[in-house]
């Protein structure tokens, strides 16, 4: 694969590279090895290090910021090169591993996953041709449908609600209040006693401080963990509905 339009001067070696198209140092290295039909298990390390450094040099010329991982790889290549120059240690037992072996392994593994990513991209493109019905359930049942939501969704929803409430906050709390987790759990349990299902957002709005809201959220997680309550949410941007866990203890 020779690249590419837009490259001005070629680095030594006549290799043209389109700057910025690589996913990282391994991607660049893999490109160098593959594009020149080098043996990945017998990498000409001097040559590859030269080309790699020429590429970095070129990035510098173009005033591109070079991520530290590229520099780390340059150092690794230099290290391998120096080890190749040393005579094998006569004291060492058995056969010393080729200093390039680890790099070969890394490149092969990376190449495998790169191919896997291409497979996924192909599957994704195939999905563009297929439509499902992105419709919500009939309105009269809208509140009854359980949506799968994991911890990430709950935390994100909470972050959102906090941000919204903080935007509204106008009063300044001067005194420090002691907010305890058991109290908040009790507050949630009391609410559950009164109503089979309630809006978590409403409860958050009753809270006066950020601390109270955080502890309230922790209390909710605690009740869920203990199998007392269940939280549901139609979408991560929306309110969290809390209800008693019917299967478990009440």
């Amino acid at each position: 694969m020779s690249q590419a339009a837009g490259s001005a001067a070629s680095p030594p070696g006549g290799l043209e590279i389109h700057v910025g198209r690589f996913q990282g140092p391994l991607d660049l290295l893999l490109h160098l090895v593959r594009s020149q039909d080098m043996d990945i298990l017998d990498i000409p390390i001097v040559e590859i290090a030269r080309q790699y450094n020429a590429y970095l040099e070129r990035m510098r010329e173009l005033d591109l910021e070079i991520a530290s991982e590229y520099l780390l790889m340059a150092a690794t290549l230099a290290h391998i090169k120096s080890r190749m120059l040393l005579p094998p240690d006569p004291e060492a037992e058995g056969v010393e591993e080729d200093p390039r072996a680890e790099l070969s392994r890394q490149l092969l593994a990376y190449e495998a996953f790169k191919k896997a990513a291409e497979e996924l991209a192909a599957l994704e493109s195939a999905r563009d041709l297929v439509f499902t019905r992105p419709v919500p359930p009939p309105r009269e049942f809208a509140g009854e449908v359980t949506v799968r939501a994991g911890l990430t969704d709950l935390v994100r929803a909470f972050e959102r609600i906090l941000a919204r409430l903080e935007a509204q906050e106008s009063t300044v709390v001067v005194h420090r209040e002691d907010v305890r987790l058991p109290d908040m759990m009790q507050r949630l349990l009391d609410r559950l006693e009164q109503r089979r299902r309630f809006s978590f957002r409403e409860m958050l709005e009753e809270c006066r401080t950020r601390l109270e809201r955080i502890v309230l959220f922790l209390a909710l997680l605690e009740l869920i963990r203990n199998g007392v309550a269940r939280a549901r949410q139609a979408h991560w941007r929306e309110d969290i509905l809390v209800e008693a866990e019917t299967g478990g203890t009440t």
Partner: protein
Amino acid sequence: MTSTVPPPMRPEPDLPAVIEAMLFASASEPVLMEEIRAGLPECEAEQIEAGIEELERRLDRRGSGLRLERVAGGFRLVTRPEHAERLRSLFRFRNRKRLTPAALEVLAIVAYAQPITAPEIQEIRGTDPAYALRVLLDRRLIRIVGRRRVVGRPILYGTTREFLMHFGLDSLADLPPVEAFGTKVMPSQRRLFPASASDAGEEAVPAEPPAVPATPGPTGRAAPPPA
């Protein structure tokens, strides 16, 4: 609208038709085998499986614009790819967000080598995956499945049901095999790096929350069996 008395349930329902109705009502959420069974308590599993296959055949035979898809361990109706071009005009503002190459690479590593930590992903790709992981978490394609019992207890990532649906896979076993080291890397082959595969234990977190609704809706979702 006239209110009609629903017809009594026939002793022998037209299984493919019933299943088709269930898949239609369930919108884009795949219907699980257990859910179909819950709606057809009088039928054996093999009968239902046969009914599903018959529905597949009927859809093909009658030249339906829909086909039955097996995805994420469930079933749903989707449009046939050949109609895609014409359908797009209905969805002018639809914008399916493609994943970036970087996100796809990280996702591929998580999918094929799960459960896996961020440092292990970094070792494979040579770059920090933090941003890609955040994007993938937000898009619900991956999730936290536990922590590795090593120093720092790094978070372990795995793929989600959403991941299977996004790529149209029935299960992880349907991931395409990939050639590496001249041998095939199968999804089940968890580690390419025995060195980094510290066989340290993993702390699991609960599986994805199951879709257990409080009330059976028209989606064909079954209520949990009474304990």
